[in-house]
């Protein structure tokens, strides 16, 4: 018998039927572990999404609240034996929420600030970054932090405040050149996604990535016209803009004629690998999207294909590794970063308890759900402390900011580094 396919906001949620309600995912879900409420578990959320699509339930306040509290960390996908495509289901649900509940004025403004303008426009983001830098350099930030004013800002604003990274100087924020030649025997030609946020805030990661790739024989192209990949829009329920950003990104990178597209931020990598599914219903783009997606690789994935080219200098220190959700759950990359760290002479790697648990950063989650984010961060920082490591290595800017903030709050002098930073150190950087 044929069934009417289940959809929300025009997006298929047929995947809900793959959930057999076994509950094997429950204890791996951070929000369920914290709250113990079934509505804040993967099984409960899938149930709600199904009930919404079937019309058994409507988007009442509690439903919106429970679905919005999902981190989209996709730990449930890793745990689920049944292969429920959870990420796609929650994206559809969030798109529906966005349609029915465009949110209050403040939230709209916040969204506009994030998605609409800044992310799509690296130049404006650079300008905003300059503003942040000024704010920090002027000493105003320290004053605001000390004054206790922060706690009186609305919840999301104070979270924003705490997250402001120490910005690099202008020279570090300058864009990378369009082309960087390989050193030694050439292994291939790859294109780098410089990302929207991190090209400004974390220019150093891109610089380190470029350097390591060159050392390992990769010729690097950096398409100068690239914008944002659209991941935050998709996760936030802004499906239309996510589609146009995906198409633009595909176009720009096709023109780079590279063997692979290398990414060093987890959310972008996972999202770009899913372009095939995102654009599957658009005949003009489906094939191109699939081909593009097949070429996307996380930096650790690419580097772990062969032993790192020496010489590597010793980095005598004890580190622990935090798995960013969209690397470990979104892209199923678990061994590679550890393999790479194991190649650095003198470096000791201690396993972090719950290494693959979300730190609460989750895109802009720490700004929209500051309370749960803070609980998860406390849990993460506690585990970091238990390892006694001198540094936390991870592979995503959001996690770095979040964990740095958590450690700072606890007065811990533990560095938080991107994998590429530690590898660059080993290359004498």
């Amino acid at each position, binding site marked *: 018998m044929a069934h009417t396919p289940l959809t929300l906001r025009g997006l298929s949620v047929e995947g809900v039927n793959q959930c057999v309600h*076994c509950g094997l995912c429950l204890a791996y879900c951070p929000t369920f572990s914290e709250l113990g409420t079934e509505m804040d578990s993967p099984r409960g959320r899938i149930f*709600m999404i199904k009930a919404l699509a079937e019309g058994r339930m409507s988007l009442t306040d509690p439903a919106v609240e429970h679905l919005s509290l999902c981190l989209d960390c996709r730990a449930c996908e890793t745990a689920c034996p049944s292969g429920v495509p959870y990420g796609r289901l929650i994206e559809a649900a969030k798109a529906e929420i966005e349609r029915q509940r465009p949110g209050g004025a403040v939230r709209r403004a916040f969204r506009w600030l994030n998605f609409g303008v800044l992310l799509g426009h690296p130049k404006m983001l650079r300008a905003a970054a300059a503003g942040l830098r000024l704010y920090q350099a002027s000493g105003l930030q320290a004053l605001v932090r000390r004054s206790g004013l922060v706690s009186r800002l609305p919840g999301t604003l104070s979270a924003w405040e705490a997250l402001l990274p120490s910005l690099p100087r202008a020279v570090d924020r300058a864009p990378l050149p369009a082309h960087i030649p390989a050193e030694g025997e050439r292994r291939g030609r790859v294109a780098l996604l410089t990302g929207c946020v991190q090209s400004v805030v974390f220019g150093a990661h891109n610089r380190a990535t470029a350097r390591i790739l060159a050392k390992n024989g990769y010729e690097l192209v950096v398409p100068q016209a690239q914008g944002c990949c659209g991941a935050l829009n998709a996760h936030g329920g802004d499906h239309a803009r996510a589609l146009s950003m995906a198409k633009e990104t595909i176009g720009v990178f096709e023109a780079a004629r590279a063997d692979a597209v290398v990414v060093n931020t987890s959310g972008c990598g996972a999202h770009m690998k899913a372009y095939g599914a995102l654009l599957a219903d658009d005949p003009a783009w489906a094939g191109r999207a699939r081909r593009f997606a097949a070429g996307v690789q996380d930096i650790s994935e690419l580097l772990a294909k062969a032993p790192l080219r020496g010489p590597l200098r010793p980095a005598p220190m004890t580190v622990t590794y935090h798995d960013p959700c969209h690397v470990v759950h979104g892209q199923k990359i678990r061994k590679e970063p550890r393999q790479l760290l194991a190649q650095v002479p003198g470096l000791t790697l201690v396993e972090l308890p719950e290494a693959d648990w979300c730190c609460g950063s989750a895109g802009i989650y720490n700004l929209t759900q500051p309370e749960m984010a803070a609980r998860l961060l406390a849990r993460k920082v506690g585990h970091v402390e238990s390892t006694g490591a001198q540094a936390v290595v991870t592979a995503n800017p959001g996690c770095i900011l979040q964990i740095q903030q958590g450690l700072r709050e606890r007065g811990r002098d533990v560095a938080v580094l991107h994998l590429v930073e530690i590898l660059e150190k080993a290359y004498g950087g």
Partner: protein
Amino acid sequence: MATLTADRKRALRTELEGMLGRGAVLSDPDELLVYESDGLTLFRALADFVVFPQSAEHVSAVVKLAHREGLPFVARGAGTGLSGGCLPAEGGIVLSLMRMNRVLEVDYDNQLAVVEPGLVNLHLSWKVGPKGYYYAPDPSSQQACTIGGNIANNSGGPHTLKYGVTTNHVLGLEVVMPDGEIVWLGGKTRESQGYDLIGVFVGSEGTFGIATKIVVRILKKPQAVKTVLAVFDEVDQASAAVSEIIARGLVPAAVEMIDQLTIGAVEDAFGCGYPRDAAAALLVELDGLAIGIETQAERIVAACRDSGAREVRTAKDEAERQLLWKGRKSAFGAYGRVSPAYMVMDGVIPRTRLPYVLRRVNEIVDAHGLRVGNVFHAGDGNLHPNILYDPRKPGEEARVVAAGAEIMKVCAEVGGSISGEHGIGLEKADFMPFIFSAADLALMQRLKHAFNPQGLCNPGKVFPTRKSCGEAGAVAYRPHAIEEQGLAQRF
């Protein structure tokens, strides 16, 4: 049961929130809906409230309120049960114990731990693992199910074959009785005086009260472990191998069987290393002292080969062993890859009847136009035929229930039982007369009545409903008026 008026409900909600705090009481219909099922979606029931106590005192206060109001109540752990045990069959209050999940004490010298009921089974082994200990009962759902739920269902697992079921690992229980009184059964020692009330409580499926603290034994991890995978081209050969292993006097820790359909699903899920073209595979594990384990393993290999195994291999390292177990333990969940729903049966049969019963299962399921996957504790003769179906197809659920009843009859006929470990719950209540006489059932009712005289604690479970028990002649135990006045006691 009378339904609550809106006013009454509001008042009760306020009272419950007063006891437990805000955020610990659910009464919104959409939120309650999420609690309508456990791991078996065939049955559904809506509560009036779901509450989240954090201590025995909380549980006691809620139970006293329910008692006062004449409201039914039921404990819920992770909701991985497969017989509808934690469903509020008659409405009322669901007490979710997920916020009582601490390990309160570990006493390594005396090899015991005191835990709260909402602790996830596997988390206890994680906790004591670094010191070389573990908690032996290992239901396949151990990554999610709670020790409280295990107590209620007297859960088993693959290693039950050697280590016994939950009841063999419980020393003491703090229980909130159905009238709200907090009592201790047993304690921290192996033997306690008087009746073995732990033995009575464990397996009572949440109908005798709510466990709020549990003293369990923890065991030293075995010195050595060997895991053997035997691959067969015919299911009958695999069945024969199970009997052969036991007949040769070998005592494996676990003997699990997994059939072709199930192998396909778990291979799709995690690529665990089971050959997809096998008709069936056996996963046999030995553990104990390092000395002699090799010879034992060789004898297992021989028994499998002599029964016709086409391939027998030993997991070469811990990673391979873990992966094989991951496949076995995720099997139920993995059925989602081949079917939108399944109903798992839980029959127990004498091991020697395996080939006959498995054939009958296939015939029955075929006759109803359905499919079945088998993955089970073969060493114990504890079958798990999983009948696959699509709830969206009209009439399929009814066919599943009918096929299930026939399978249970077959188990009863060969001298087995209708439940090995998943409990009777709602699902099998009406099948009790297959194995128990009216007198048996009446006696059990009286035991229940001793603990749960008002019948408010998890009603509607275990015993046949009135309409079906008419045929078996079972009548619910009701105290005589003079018993109620304390003038006489019936024994």
